[in-house]
């Protein structure tokens, strides 16, 4: 069966393209039920984008939740073993959306790799993230960061937990003045604070950022991370998505779950990020798994406004008939018109507020054009 892409809404069209992409790289679809025991989310509240969950009591008295997230369910059901388990999903999730502060149904698609995550696995996931963005719009940017670098630099400041949390938030906002203020208040050494400030200011193409990083940073942990980042982005650049990659340390995912490489994708025209992901070995440990993992999610609800498809008309043609019109002729005329690819609605009177390209009337002598709108 061939499906004409034009009948699909933008988010559906993108969804199909993404599915084809993930399938081609050997990812299998993960289908799950709409509900999950609430307990799973209660234990990992901070991992969720928003901690509000719609709950209800099931017939057996168990407290259930409408899925606010897919990753946790996938991890829960994953088994440690040889090889890397690669799955993709496209599911509706239910959560409070950032700007409206009300529950919304959000179409989300994404993929997860669970197992022994090596350089190849990370590079592949990043390549798929970039390709996903490219299928949404050619005008995209993929920001990549390495949490070990940020965390090594902040550890050097030697500040307490509260200040560390506030500093991380400021890094996420590119808030240089607040970083300076917080570090000073916490009594961090000025030259170390300057390293953090420069790290936050450092952004752009990997080819310019990586050499600067190698000069800026000290210590094995940070430099190991830079080397890994360098190996991976070099491979990515060779695979052809280099132009759109940017190193940006303001990509901060929750460090109690994420570690290593994290990334966020932006598309010109959508005000918030449309793709988000990273390595989340810490979450795996919390859930008692030995395997490592990496994955990302694409938020399709944001894409509705991306394309001005200029649908100025509800229908191509309104075909008017009256009570004396012969039923067979009417049926045949409608068939004939739809066969040309036009959308047609047969009506006795023009429906209120309907916008149409052509207004037709079926008379005994045939179809008459009454009105044409450009």
């Amino acid at each position, binding site marked *: 069966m061939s499906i004409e892409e034009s009948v699909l809404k933008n988010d559906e069209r993108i969804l199909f393209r993404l599915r084809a992409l993930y399938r081609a790289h050997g990812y299998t679809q993960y289908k799950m039920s709409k509900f999950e025991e609430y307990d799973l989310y209660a234990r990992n509240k901070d991992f969720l984008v928003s901690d509000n969950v719609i709950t209800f009591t099931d017939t057996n008295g168990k407290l259930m939740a409408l899925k606010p997230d897919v990753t946790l369910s996938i991890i829960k059901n994953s088994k440690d073993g040889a090889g890397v388990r690669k799955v993709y999903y496209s599911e509706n999730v239910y959560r409070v959306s950032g700007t409206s502060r009300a529950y919304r149904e959000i179409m989300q698609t994404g993929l997860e790799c669970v197992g022994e995550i090596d350089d190849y696995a990370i590079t592949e996931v990043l390549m798929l993230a970039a390709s996903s963005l490219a299928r949404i719009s050619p005008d995209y*940017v993929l920001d990549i960061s390495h949490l070990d670098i940020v965390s090594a630099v902040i550890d050097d400041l030697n500040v307490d937990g509260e200040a560390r949390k506030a500093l991380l938030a400021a890094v996420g*906002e*590119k*808030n*240089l003045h607040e970083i300076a203020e917080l570090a000073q208040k916490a009594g961090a050494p000025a030259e170390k604070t300057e390293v953090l400030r420069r790290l936050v200011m450092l952004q752009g193409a990997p080819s310019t950022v990586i050499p600067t990083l190698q000069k800026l940073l000290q210590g094995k942990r940070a430099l190991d991370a830079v080397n890994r980042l360098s190996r991976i982005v070099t491979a990515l650049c060779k695979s052809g998505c280099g132009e759109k990659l940017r190193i940006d340390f303001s990509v901060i995912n929750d460090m109690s779950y994420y570690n290593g490489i994290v990334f966020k994708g*932006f*598309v*010109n025209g*959508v*005000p918030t990020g449309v793709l988000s992901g990273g390595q989340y070995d810490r979450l795996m440990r919390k859930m008692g798994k030995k395997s490592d993992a990496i994955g990302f999610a694409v938020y399709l609800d944001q894409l509705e406004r991306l394309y001005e498809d200029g649908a100025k008309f509800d229908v191509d043609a309104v075909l008017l008939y009256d009570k004396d019109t012969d039923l067979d002729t009417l049926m045949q005329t409608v068939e004939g018109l739809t066969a040309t690819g036009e959308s047609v609605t047969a009506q006795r009177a023009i429906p209120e507020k309907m916008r149409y390209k052509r207004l037709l009337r079926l008379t005994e002598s045939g179809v008459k054009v009454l009105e044409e709108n450009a």
Partner: protein
Amino acid sequence: MLNVALPKGRLGEKVYAMFEAAGFECPSIKENNRKLIFENEEAGVRYFWVKPSDVAIYVERGAADIGVAGKDILLEYEPDVYELFDLDIGKCRMAVAAKKDFRDDPQKTLRVATKFSNIARNYYASLGRDIDIIHLNGSIEIAPILGLSDVIVDIVETGTTLKENDLAVQETIVPISARLIANKTSYKFKSEPIEAILRSLSNMAKEQK
């Protein structure tokens, strides 16, 4: 075209003056009329006046690429934006105020009247204090006088209003000033003009020091 949301009022005019000095002028903005949007195609910039508390919303949702908002608004609404620069103007502080002779009785739930519920809640949560928030939209100062609340959490600039109503600052929560904020996507795709503004502003700040 770079869209800039400015807060209506005195602060906004000051901010515009800084942007103008930074090379992003738009002469039509000074004409005295009721227009809300002003454009200078040559400089590639479009300004619009919005209610100060709405600037963050315009920027977060991408209707404006950058904007200037008070730290109070950013703390209250916690928008997902980049906070790029402290303009060091519109300075005041977020403070707890009460009647001069107020004694805080820790045995009772503290009744707090405020426009800034989120800030008040976070502040008292950090102290571990149980409070009852009374959200008001204006004339916060009369709440303790009429016995509606024990204390208020509000912006204090000079303290004159407080003094005239026999109130006094008990505690400063956080200093406030105007901040340059940017939409996260715009920052990626319009980085050149945004960074040019940022550079000019920080150079101007350095010169003043």
